[in-house]
């Protein structure tokens, strides 16, 4: 037991050390990482490998979505499979029935998932902790039941097949021409950008304040319920985006693609990577998605491993693998309407 703890701690310290030293070269690193991932398909990976990378990307997006709710706000959702399903089904139906372009379909799907997130978020204002988790779990199951029984729209248990691939100006993106991979990359960068934006914004700070101590946050004049619903909506929208992309990637979806297992897997990624971090989502998704592919003989053990991940992380490293407190100096944000900001601006102008 002690060995596990020290092992995990040493790993985290290593990463943390790396962060401190590498910070200076971050632009080079980001550019390098980006170009490396851009070049991935050119290295001549098979479609199988490309597919795994795409799945890692999708689960990173899902985890980033859940992270806003679980990582920043501290609300554990067990029903993100439901949002994932809503996004996927909406996109699929819009593309098939109304011959919409992928982008438009996904955008409508995101709006629709956001509305569902709002609807789920509103009644859960009265609930916290475990109760909230159970309601979200119920939500996930209800979505599945609606999909199974609402035959006229969702085609019931037969699922929806032949979902078209996304195409732009008559150019169809497939696995073979790596179009789907690049689309994933674009969406992932977009989602990451949004998440970084939220993290550094007023909203992100508020959400973290709510997680740390909701009572204190309310005493400081924060309308916590408003922000909690907001977190639900943003989280649902991001998950819906991943769902829409997933539908057009696999081109066949049914109610079994969105079980409780999916929700648990997303949660495992968030917890393994480190709640409330963005870097953690990438590492968590890469480990947990690639694990069953790398360890083929352990394929049937993978769900046991997900369970073990949850238990061991909770016991030895609740903040996750990459969840250290940053040693970099914290830049205190200056509010645009604050006195200091105005004074500084004034001083700058005068100085010039």
């Amino acid at each position, binding site marked *: 037991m002690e060995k596990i703890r020290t092992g995990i701690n040493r790993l985290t310290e290593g990463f943390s050390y790396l962060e401190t030293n590498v910070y200076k070269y971050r632009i080079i690193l980001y550019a390098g990482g980006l170009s490396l991932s851009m070049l991935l398909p050119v290295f001549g990976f098979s479609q199988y490998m490309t597919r795994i990378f795409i799945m890692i990307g999708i689960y990173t997006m899902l985890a980033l979505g859940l992270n806003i709710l679980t990582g920043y706000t501290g609300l554990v959702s067990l029903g993100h499979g439901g949002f994932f399903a809503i996004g996927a089904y909406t996109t699929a139906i819009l593309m098939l029935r109304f011959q919409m372009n992928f982008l438009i379909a996904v955008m409508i799907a995101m709006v629709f998932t956001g509305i569902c997130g709002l609807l789920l978020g509103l009644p859960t204002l009265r609930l916290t902790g475990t109760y909230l988790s159970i309601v979200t779990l119920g939500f996930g199951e209800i979505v599945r039941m609606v999909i199974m029984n609402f035959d006229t729209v969702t085609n019931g248990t037969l699922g929806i097949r032949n979902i078209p691939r996304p195409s732009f100006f008559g150019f169809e993106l497939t696995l073979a021409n790596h179009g789907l991979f690049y689309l994933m990359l674009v969406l992932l960068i977009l989602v990451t950008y949004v998440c970084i934006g939220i993290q550094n914004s007023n909203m992100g700070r508020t959400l973290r304040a709510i997680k740390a101590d909701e009572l204190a946050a309310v005493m400081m004049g924060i309308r916590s319920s408003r922000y909690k619903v907001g977190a639900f909506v943003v989280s649902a929208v991001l998950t819906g985006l991943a769902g829409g992309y997933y539908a057009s990637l696999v081109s066949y979806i049914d109610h079994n693609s969105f079980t409780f297992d999916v929700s648990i897997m997303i949660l495992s990624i968030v917890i393994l990577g480190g709640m409330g971090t963005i870097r953690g989502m990438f590492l968590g998704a890469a480990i947990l998605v690639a694990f069953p592919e790398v360890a083929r003989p352990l394929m049937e053990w993978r769900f046991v491993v997900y369970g073990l991940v949850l238990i061991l992380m909770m016991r030895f490293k*609740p903040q996750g693998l990459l969840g250290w407190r940053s040693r970099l100096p914290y830049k205190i944000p200056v509010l645009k309407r604050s006195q200091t900001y105005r004074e500084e601006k004034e001083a700058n102008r005068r100085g010039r």
Partner: protein
Amino acid sequence: MILQQIFNGLSLGMAYALIAVGYSLVFGILRLVNFSHGAVYAFGAHAVIFFIGYHFGLIPAILLGVLLTGALGVLIDRVALYPLRKKKSPGISSLITTIGISYIIQNLLMMGFGSEKKPFPKLFDNRIVHILGARISTMQIIMFVTSVILLAILTFLIKGTKIGLAMRAVEQNEKNAGLMGINTNFIIAFTFFLGGISAAIASVLISGYYEILYPTMGFMVGLKAFAAAVLGGIGVLHGAIVGGLVIGVSEGLAATWFGSQYRDSVAFIILIIVLIVRPAGLFGRKGIEKV
């Protein structure tokens, strides 16, 4: 027809109440929704069928299986939850841990027994009794009677014995109970044992009623029982019984009125309505802190 469904619902609801008691007991003491309870329930039926395979005879097999499930409950507490308590981790850690446990148990069952649905042996020679024009099988009657007896024993255990007194003391204030010389860790382990036993008996009854078992059977039933516990007021023993009956009957009625595919969604809808309208449940004390 409606009478028939009500009778079906009553017998099934009593079994739900048995499982719901497990949630209630643990919640009362630890303020934790034991997510692994559904998996423990599934484990019970599988343990029994495992021992039946060794030809011990039916009754010893059931006894062994039930005791083993109780031991599993204690094991869960000692291995996973006790270290968290010692570390004083926030409640959400325990919740996620129990989710992980349920996942591990369920998937180990899948690997050990296969994920397909398997027949569960008939416990009794099934006869049909006609009451007021409704057909009731002996299995349903036995299910109802066994559950009532067990719930009565549990109530006596908690209200009338020394260990029950200790359990209630720990429920009210764990620290003070410890200062009064109560071995709180033993009491918590004992609570898990009781929860495991009642879940295992319920799983034998329900599997015997449907004559089927499979590793994921605990997921749905666990949620229904949780809905029952919340409806009655979680932490309240008689509330769990009323909640179980309501869930069982409304499930049967929904199946007749709206079609059998809506059978499973009723519990969720009841759960969500209760949580929004009256989170403390029917018999719950108001102002109980939601962790």
